């Protein structure tokens, strides 16, 4: 087990380096930089542009250096918790993203929990009653849930809440708590608002998970040991809980690696629609105005979530399944 953990951790380092390189290339891709956007903006407003001052700014941020050098200084900054400077907000990036990253983490984590709990309950119920009314309804709703993109679902929910209850469901916390230090009241407010984004983001993941759990459990329930156990008169609930359910729960751990990117993607766009103070809107604005360090840090953070999440799911899977632990290498 120790060897396996060490191996996975070592593999993670080059992955993260490659991720950071790709992120840097992407944020460097647009022609020009933020300062050029700034010059254009000032010119369009008819302000006098002091080229000397712009040049000084460029030098201060290291934008005049070759890209390779910029990359390494950015990378070393990342290690020291210095994420660079946001030109648009004129503040250090770390100040801007700190709370948003935490909120993103809360939303992501609760969404995963939601997916687990709901799909466990519905999946088990449905698989033990194949082709019943509940099963058919769940299958149909599941297909619909998979096909409805979450930002449209958010839009529909917002509209319905507005029409029926005259209620605005946007936001991740009450307005009075914005930009306030964390307190129990603030945390409570977040929890109150959390359920809508969680449902919106988690729906498609839940639908997929129910399908997988149902298929796995149905396969398992047809096996001979289950028939034997039943024939010997074991209580039906015990027959279900003892082995088949445990075996078919594997995707709960194994699929986190593939669900997590979807959840984080979903949170980015749902945040824009529902006006949440997580990454979405700020990332969008940063990308539009070429605020490169801010955008890059967001991309880096989101990818880091995925990489760490996958790592944790791999480790949990290894703890559960000795075949993976002892082969030491590839997991899937």
């Amino acid at each position: 087990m120790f060897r396996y953990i060490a191996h996975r951790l070592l593999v993670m380092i080059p992955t993260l380096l490659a991720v950071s390189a790709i992120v840097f290339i992407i944020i460097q891709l647009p022609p020009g930089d933020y300062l050029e956007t700034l010059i254009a903006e000032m010119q369009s407003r008819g302000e006098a542009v002091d080229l000397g001052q712009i040049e000084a700014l460029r030098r201060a941020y290291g934008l005049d250096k070759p890209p390779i050098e910029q990359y390494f200084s950015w990378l070393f900054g990342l290690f020291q918790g210095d994420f660079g400077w946001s030109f648009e907000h004129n503040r250090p990036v770390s100040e801007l993203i700190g709370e948003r990253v935490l909120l993103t983490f809360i939303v992501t984590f609760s969404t995963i929990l939601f997916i687990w709990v709901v799909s466990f309950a519905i999946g088990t119920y449905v698989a033990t009653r194949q082709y019943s009314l509940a099963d058919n309804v769940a299958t149909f709703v599941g297909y619909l849930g998979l096909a409805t993109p979450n930002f449209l679902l958010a839009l529909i929910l917002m509209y319905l809440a507005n029409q029926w209850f005259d209620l605005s469901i946007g936001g991740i916390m009450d307005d009075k708590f914005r930009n306030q230090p964390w307190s129990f009241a603030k945390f409570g407010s977040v929890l109150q608002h959390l359920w809508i984004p969680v449902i919106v983001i988690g729906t498609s993941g839940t639908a997929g998970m129910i399908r997988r759990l149902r298929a796995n459990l149905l396969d398992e329930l047809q096996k001979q040991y289950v028939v034997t156990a039943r024939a010997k008169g074991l209580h039906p609930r015990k027959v279900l809980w003892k082995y088949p359910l445990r075996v078919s729960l594997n995707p709960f751990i194994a699929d986190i690696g593939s669900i997590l990117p979807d959840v984080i993607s979903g949170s980015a766009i749902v945040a824009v629609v529902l006006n949440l103070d997580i990454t979405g809107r700020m990332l969008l604005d940063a990308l539009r105005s070429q605020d490169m360090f801010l955008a890059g840090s967001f991309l880096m953070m989101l990818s880091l979530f995925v990489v760490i999440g996958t790592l944790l799911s791999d480790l949990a899977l290894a703890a559960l399944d000795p075949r993976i632990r002892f082969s030491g290498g590839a997991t899937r």
Partner: protein
Amino acid sequence: MSDDRNEEDADKPAPHFVSREPFDPDDDVALTPEQEKFYMASQWRLMWWKLRRHRVAVAAGIFLILLYLIAIFAEVVAPYELQHRDTRALFVPPQAIHLFHEGKFIGPFTYRYKSRFDLENAQWVHTPDTTKVDRIRFLCSGGYRGAEYEFWGLFKGNFHLFCPAGKRGTVFLLGTDRLGRDVFSRIVHGSRISLSIGLIGIVLSFVLGIAIGGVAGFYGGWVDNIIQRLIEVLKSFPRLPLWMALSAALPIKWPPIMIYFGITLILAFLDWPGLARAVRSKLLALREEDFAIAANLMGASTKRIIGRHLVPSFASHLIASASLAIPEMILGETALSFLGLGLRPPITSWGVLLNEAQNIQVVALYPWLMAPMIPVILTVLAFNFLGDGLRDAADPYT
């Protein structure tokens, strides 16, 4: 004596039964015509038979063919031209289609809207005027503003599947937007972009995925290792933020058609890793099969082994996974355009149309602006059903 005995024996059953029928040694392994047909059928025919039994998948397939036909003949299906603006009909709610007027059947028609500007709430109020009947014409040509179009930009025409009655009549099946453009017509026109982007994207992703996955799977070793790591890195990105970043990087000065291809490329860029991984694992398994070794021993070139023997044996799986990847690309484009990062007007896709519905205040007042999400959901649903059926049919021998 011997004659007598023969006569007696003729009455009794013979000690051994000997059939007088001609003997066929293959009799007990012979097949009925149906079985014969089944066993002689090619792999693709078997898959078709298996798919045909999957009713929902077939229905979804037919629905998709219909959608693509609509996309091809968008100008004819839509009653109005894409950019046509009716300045007297801003934010008109969907017009109901009636069949009976004052108890009399007169076929499908609409009541003409009476429009006035409500100064108090600063918005247009449209009320149907139940005295003015506008009968909808079918298979008609021209006679109203917005009827003229250029079919695929090639030749002019004004023939439509259905049109409003004459100059003053209107058919706004799904209402109009803030500029008085018919939402239904724009959805129909937008289908051309939205539906084609998935197809072009999947072709690009296929080329990349098969080429790269093929190289990794066939050569193995360090090539495989590097490609595997690259795939892992690309897979550890959350898709949408990366798509957003890439499409934000497209130069604003590009003409719309370049943006269109740029977006397609971006969508394919994050889709090929999954395909490449599938191709690789299939190749790794298949190249150990006897038929691949036999082809190798008989001196077939690498190109021939891959192209002639290996690819056909997993092509069906690729098609199935393609039909599941297309909706993801359609959704990707819709999401990007919705955010204003993807396609931009004058190019019209469903996502571009939904961009107008981003603001909850607008949506609350004019909910029909959300209508473009209906075709999005239906298309994705249909592709998912078809993909499920294809995946089941892809392995006809099980």
